């Protein structure tokens, strides 16, 4: 046999044995049922896409936030009932005008063990808090925006003029004080996202670019173990300050499975414990009756489910200064939201005419998602009278995300009988975002996934003049609205303040910077043998009382 042929045979044999032996030699993370103790059986949570980073200052995608919630915590965090609860800090107080906030560090909160500390867990210090906030305000930190204008000195840090965050100072070894540029009665809620988590200075400095990729050290209930291919492996942190049930599972694996069909097959085969249901995946698995989501008989034999509203809003955004106000109102009044939902998100959509998530704790919206064709025709008449000779028309940008195309098609068909001509222009999402940034659009279909569970913060961050052009994609500027929203932060949050928020939302909707169409609920498909899991409206899973049967 010639040398080259021997080489080919050897290569083929080597390739095959590599493939076979690598399969045998690598321990698989797949949970094996019954024989193992329930604590040893891993919980596998499927993600729909890759996690770019789990470094809090780099948390950009919802998948990273979901994983980040388990690993790291801020001074405060969002609780099971979407309320703001203490995490690294257990109590806080402010001065009377809410411009200074003092946070007391919770006793016994430690970072996960990390090679840099060279030993057991180290306690969180006030210096770690200051370091974390300075880091999250850096110029290239995703997290900087909402805090930059609030904390004194934050702008200088963001602009690179200073390395010290002058607005945060140590009061005592367990107390840190934040000085704000303006009153903010909701500051503890503002910093409740996992993106504002406290990290170990020692770990960040030792890990460099690997922090959040191969290494991590937070204070959350689970510690980062490793990143293995498409999996992120976490292990329960024995030194966690919070409580957990005695037989809680020890290991949690976040596994990325991009294809819906494959993800579902894996869950059916019990290789995935928890699955976030996407609209396409839920088709045929759940049915909706009287706003209640239930599993079909077939699916009920395989899964249990939990459905809960989440913090989001899907809408048509008008370019507020460019599109005539009567035309905007006519469109807002003419659309049938149920028909839009049927076309776009039949199993998860909830009609919602306002931008504030229905899931916000204790919030009751005053706007009703009803269609009023007579009022729409009147508004259209006014438009024709005030703009003689003008044809009611709108160029609607649609893209590949947020079900924009089916929504656009339904809107087009619903407005046609009224004589409003809708031209659908399909572009990539990035192109639409570019057009929005430049103000070069009339209307587009978009969705917001909110990180905040407080309506006041949502109004301030998305619907004030300061947020133009992004995230205030509407270019909505109304001084009265700005003033009313600013006033919300001068008083302590109470139910009457939430009523005030509802009124601001009503005024906003009547001004029609956009047509708020629906919000969605999230359905989790769960292995029936796994019980006790809860999930808040930011889609963060709480495993503190979850266990295998």
């Amino acid at each position, binding site marked *: *046999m*010639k040398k*080259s*042929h021997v080489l*080919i045979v050897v*290569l*083929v044999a080597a*390739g*095959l044995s*590599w*493939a*076979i032996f*690598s*399969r045998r030699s*690598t321990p*698989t*993370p*797949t949970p094996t049922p019954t024989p193992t103790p329930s604590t040893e059986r891993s919980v596998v949570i499927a993600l729909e896409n*890759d996690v*770019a*980073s789990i*470094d809090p200052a*780099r948390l*950009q995608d919802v998948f990273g936030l979901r994983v980040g919630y388990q690993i790291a915590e801020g001074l405060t965090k969002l609780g099971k009932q979407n309320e703001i609860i203490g995490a690294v800090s257990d109590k806080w107080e402010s001065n009377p005008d809410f411009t200074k906030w003092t946070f007391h560090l919770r006793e016994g909160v430690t970072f996960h063990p990390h090679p840099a500390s060279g030993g057991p867990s180290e306690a969180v210090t006030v210096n770690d808090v200051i370091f974390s906030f300075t880091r999250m305000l850096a*110029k*290239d930190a*995703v997290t*900087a*925006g909402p805090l*930059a*204008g609030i904390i004194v000195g934050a702008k200088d840090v*963001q*602009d690179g003029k200073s390395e010290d965050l002058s607005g945060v100072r140590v009061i005592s070894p367990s107390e840190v004080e934040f000085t704000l540029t303006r009153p903010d009665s909701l500051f503890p809620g503002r910093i409740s996202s996992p993106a504002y988590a406290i990290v170990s200075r020692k770990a960040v400095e030792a890990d460099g*670019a690997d922090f959040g*990729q191969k290494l991590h050290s937070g204070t959350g209930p689970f510690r980062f173990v490793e990143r*293995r*291919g*498409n999996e992120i492996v976490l292990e329960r942190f024995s030194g966690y300050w919070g409580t957990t049930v005695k037989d809680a599972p020890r290991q949690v694996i976040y*596994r*990325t*499975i*991009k*294809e819906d*069909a*494959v993800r579902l*097959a*894996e869950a059916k085969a019990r*290789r995935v414990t928890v699955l976030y249901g996407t609209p396409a995946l839920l088709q045929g698995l759940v049915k909706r009756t009287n706003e209640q989501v239930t599993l079909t008989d077939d699916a009920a034999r395989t899964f249990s489910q939990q459905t809960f509203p989440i913090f989001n809003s899907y809408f048509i955004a008008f370019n507020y200064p460019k599109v005539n106000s009567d035309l905007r109102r006519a469109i807002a009044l003419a659309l049938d939201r149920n028909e839009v939902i049927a076309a776009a998100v039949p199993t998860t959509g909830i009609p919602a005419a306002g931008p504030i998530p229905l899931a916000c704790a204790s919030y009751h919206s005053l706007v009703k998602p009803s269609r009023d064709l007579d009022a729409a025709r009147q508004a259209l008449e006014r438009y024709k009278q005030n703009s003689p000779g003008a044809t009611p028309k709108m160029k609607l940008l649609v893209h590949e995300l947020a079900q924009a195309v089916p929504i656009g098609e339904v809107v087009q068909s619903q407005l046609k009988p009224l004589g409003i001509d809708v031209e659908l222009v399909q*572009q*990539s999402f*990035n*192109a639409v*975002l*570019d057009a929005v*940034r430049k103000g070069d659009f009339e209307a587009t279909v978009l969705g917001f996934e909110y990180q905040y569970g407080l309506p006041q913060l949502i109004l301030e*961050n998305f619907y004030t003049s*300061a*947020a133009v052009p*992004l*995230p205030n994609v509407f270019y909505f500027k109304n001084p009265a609205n700005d003033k009313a929203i600013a006033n919300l932060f001068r008083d302590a949050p109470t139910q009457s303040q939430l009523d005030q928020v509802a009124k601001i939302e009503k005024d906003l909707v009547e001004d029609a910077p956009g047509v708020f169409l629906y919000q969605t609920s999230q359905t989790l498909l769960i292995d029936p043998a796994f019980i006790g899991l809860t999930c808040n409206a930011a889609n963060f899973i709480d495993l503190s009382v979850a266990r295998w049967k």
Partner: protein
Amino acid sequence: MLNPSGTPNVRLRWFNGFCASVGYGLSLLAGLLFLAFFLTHVAPGDPARIILGANAREDSVQALRSEMGFDRPLLRQFTDYSWRLLSGRWGNSWLARRPVLAEIGEHLGPTIRIGIVAVLFALGTAIALNACFFWIPHLRWIVNVTRFGVAIPGVVLAMGGALLASRWSSGLSIEKFSFVPGVSAGLYTSCLITSLLSDRLSQIEASSAFRATEALGFGRFHIFNRVLLSNARSLLTTLCVNQLGLIFFSTIIVEQIFSIRGLGALLVRSIQGKDLPVISAILLLNGVFFLVVHFFQAKGTSSQFREVPI
């Protein structure tokens, strides 16, 4: 030019050839550099906005845009960008915020494994099937199946294979699936090589020289190995080299389906996120890889490979 003895100056010819190769390589790399820059600047999306996220305030985005030089004239940006790359400063990924080479290094392993399995599978099945056809001529109908495979677009074949495999196989860890994605990525190439090799071997079998070899009483294995395969070797090499691009493309598809954190998945993520440093690095490394492969192929074909006389 001739040397005093009248024979061509070998050193000069080698030098000219070397210069031509280097010139070709450099021009190709310059083209790739320009392409990467052009694509990311023509494609919609603001890099600074991508880094800071859709919800970032415009003043923060503007500040970062200015610091990163995105507000400079395009030509200046291109020269800065080229100089950075040429001086070895590949920079950090805009999305992952870590060195580009570290990011690529982490994603390279799975892609190489899939690629090697795909090539070996394609080559192995093509040779094995054609050996079967030689020994058992009744099985030649299988060639029609492989021709049907060639008629299907390679991407569709890779996608179909991967989807089927992912349904039947258990678990989705890359370690477990190193074989299956490779086979999915190599399906089209396997069909193509099998068909073309079969045609080539049929031609050889029809030759009088082949019949003479048979008449001399050589064994079947000797004939298949020394006569048929030897004479199809350059075809196999050319096919493998030319199919590498398609295999890489198929790898991107199967990485998506199997959720493998490979180079393909990284490229898709980077294109979606306009991560210019990563896109540039992948394009350039890809260009260098193909330059090297083609260089050795050309060298091998011209100086070493020759048809074995039959």
